């Protein structure tokens, strides 16, 4: 069978000892880089790109790919342990993962995250191997109107992310939207709210904002409550997930994998949207939605599976069309070009050993990551035992290094500090940071998609409703927005009836 032949080619390429070594080096670096906040796979890959010059293309891509999905594994570590997303896609893991850590359940959180990522990563590799071409063709159908509709639908999911007041979540989302508008206008080149700063030409960066809202703000809040308080429960329940954890996580992992894979294919979509979507969906279908935000393992399992599965999906547009789905894939594209390979629709035909070798090695990489991460869990958990007075300066230094390492720009440190204070105030008054981050990241895409769509339709708004995929997402989004309003109104009406009968 064709697939088995290809698998055989792939394995024979990937199981070469030198290639296995590169795979290992890649996932190791990826994990380390994922752990360090701010410094993401993008930075690591661009730093290592020159050193791949002297390697053969397949080994180079194996290593760089390893860094990418390794970073997804590593990013969850700091999210769970210290509430700092190591990777943008790990923001959602902070919500419940960190709470689990504070309750002494860091071990199960880390464990489920590792296993979930492994399962998702494996399945997405299978998906990549089996259904790349038809999936890629499907991805092509997503034009500007479909993107707008998708993100519109995504924003409506935001409502379900809210643990507390929906009104406050929406307010934060609007703040996020406003922040996302800052920068250079896509069409006219006009500057908006850049205050004459060069740094703000491209808008407020996501990394300083996230570091501030999640990392710095958390430290500030803990400091206020008293430095000698035990931030983390010192006795640990157990180090690994038990049967009940598995039972609760099985569904989320399965759903997260599917969501992540499909959203990862869409250029610009990717791991962040898929992890948010997974979280929201798990919360919506859970029997105990109020537990989300206080340490529900489903809130870790689903998003973690989603963001790892998205890495597999992200390779598809690159390997089938030569079009990168995100910044990391663009780097891989660059690496291919430097090695004299022109990525495009002919890549699979002209370089089958490269394609199948990379696919096989992605699976091997996932196995390596699992073996690497599991024994480390007891070690990571020990970090939480460090007295908080010693831990928090380390956390702050972490954040500083993370933000500065991006662009060597001290203005971003100031932004992080400002958002740290803002985040602290938000916590005091019960406003959540997740909707803000989500809206901040999606706003530019949303706005650009909207304007492009109107250009395509010569100004006709109906374009969002005449195209099938776009109509589907718009309708879902409208329903999701309207549903809580409808339920509340109905409930109020029911409450009023008995009183009127008296």
């Amino acid at each position, binding site marked *: 069978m064709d697939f088995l032949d290809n698998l055989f080619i792939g394995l024979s390429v990937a199981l070469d000892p030198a290639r296995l070594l590169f795979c290992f080096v890649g996932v190791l670096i990826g994990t380390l880089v994922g752990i360090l906040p701010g410094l993401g796979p993008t930075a690591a890959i661009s730093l290592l790109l020159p050193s791949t010059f002297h390697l053969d293309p397949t080994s180079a891509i194996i290593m760089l790919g390893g860094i990418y999905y390794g970073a997804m594994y590593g990013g969850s570590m700091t999210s769970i342990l210290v509430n700092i997303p190591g990777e943008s896609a790990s923001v959602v893991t902070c919500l419940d993962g960190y709470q689990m850590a504070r309750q002494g359940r860091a071990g199960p959180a880390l464990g489920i995250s590792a296993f979930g990522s492994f399962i998702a990563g494996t399945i997405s590799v299978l998906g990549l191997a089996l259904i790349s071409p038809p999936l890629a063709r499907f991805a092509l159908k997503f*034009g500007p109107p479909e993107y707008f509709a998708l993100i519109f639908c995504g924003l409506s999911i935001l409502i379900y992310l809210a643990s507390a007041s929906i009104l406050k979540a929406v307010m934060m989302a609007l703040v996020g939207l406003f922040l996302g508008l800052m920068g250079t206008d896509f069409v006219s080149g006009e500057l908006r709210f850049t205050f004459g700063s060069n740094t703000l030409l491209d808008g407020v960066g996501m990394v300083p904002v996230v570091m501030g809202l999640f990392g710095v703000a958390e430290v500030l809040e803990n400091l206020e409550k008293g430095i000698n308080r035990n931030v983390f429960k010192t006795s640990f329940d157990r180090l690994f997930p038990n049967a009940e954890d598995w039972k609760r996580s099985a569904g989320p992992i399965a759903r997260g994998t599917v969501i992540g894979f499909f959203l990862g294919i869409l*250029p610009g979509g990717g791991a962040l949207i898929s992890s948010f979507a997974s979280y929201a969906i798990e919360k919506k279908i859970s029997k105990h939605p109020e537990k989300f935000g206080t340490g529900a393992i489903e809130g870790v399992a689903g998003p973690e599976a989603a963001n790892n599965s998205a890495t597999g999906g992200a390779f598809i547009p690159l390997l089938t*069309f030569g079009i990168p789905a995100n910044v990391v894939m*663009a780097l*891989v594209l*660059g690496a291919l070009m*430097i090695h004299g390979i*022109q990525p495009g629709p002919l890549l699979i035909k002209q370089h089958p050993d490269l394609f199948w070798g990379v696919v096989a090695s992605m699976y091997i990489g996932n196995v390596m990551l699992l073996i690497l991460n599991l024994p480390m869990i007891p070690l990571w958990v020990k970090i939480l035992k460090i007295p908080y007075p010693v831990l928090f300066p380390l956390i702050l230094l972490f954040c500083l290094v993370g933000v500065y390492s991006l662009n060597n720009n001290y203005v971003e440190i100031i932004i992080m500090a400002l958002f740290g204070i803002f985040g602290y105030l938000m916590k005091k008054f019960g406003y959540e940071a997740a909707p803000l981050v989500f809206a901040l990241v999606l706003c530019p895409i949303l706005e650009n998609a909207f304007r*492009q769509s109107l250009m*395509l339709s010569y100004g006709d708004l109906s374009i969002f409703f005449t195209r099938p995929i776009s109509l589907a997402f718009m309708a879902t989004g409208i329903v999701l927005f309207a549903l809580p309003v409808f339920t509340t109104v109905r409930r109020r009406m029911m409450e009023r009836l008995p009183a009127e009968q008296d």
Partner: protein
Amino acid sequence: MTRKFRVSMVLTLALLVVSTWVGSLTISSPVVAATKAEYPTKPITLVVPMSPGGGTDVVGRMIANEMSQYLPNKVIVLNKPGGAGITGIQEVAIAEPDGYTLLFLTATPIVQTYATKKRVNYKDFLLLGLVDKDSFVLVVPKNAKWATSDEFFKEAKEKPGKVRLGHPGVGTSVHLVVPMLEKYTGAKFQQVPFAGSNPTHMALLGGHIDAGITTVGDVAALVKAGDIRMLALSGESRWKEYPDVPTFKEKGIDVGILHWRGIWARKETPVPILDILEETIRKAANSQSYRDTMIKAGKIPDNIVGRTILQERLKKEDSSIKEALMRLNLLQE
């Protein structure tokens, strides 16, 4: 104060001191006055104002790698994306003009001089050498109804504002070709901007736009696979590889401008250093290994070196860029 509190304060202070010290080490030490015999005494930084992995970044890395073979020290690429190139250009504009900080870019400095008020001035720089060239090309999806560029422009002229033409972003060198096409053909397009050439190509493949303007190098893979067709391209003569694709000039459309990338240095850089740089660029761009790698990656190596020759070329491009910006209402005087 409890003991724990004191310990933590001391630790924080220690960390602050250490990190400041480490940070200060990275501030460059005073410049050693370089003479012709000594330059370069340390690695040279080639600033690429684009994200890693993009076309400009890839070519920049290739030429940097090649130049490193001819110099006692390496040439290292530093990516400084942002502000459509402004961040990176300014990085070089404020650095010491000692020949250790160079800029690798397209004609973007010229564009940004006129498109954004007072942020950059390309006349602060000298273009030392061009190392790649590419043609701007009009492309359509494979099953588009137009077989030739004549048919295409005819329809665009008859139905102004109806033909949807995608491009990689407002103010990019590719975008500037559009008003020039409109000027010479009388056509008027519905311009749709995208964030780079990749989204533009995706939109073409998906049939969301009717046509697109891009560069041959960027779209070559898709053309070879038959998913996209080229209708006409810029330049003086047809491409060897694509003998069936006419040039705009053949069709009476005077768009001969090419897309190029080159190395810029500050104009205050000492002349002996400029000469050494030009010599190195000439050798590197002419080397077989550079040419081979570029061609395999689907790019066209070029080798036009000499700041005086290039000065003339820049003057010509200056006026056509200004005119294109004016037509797009992007000109800021």
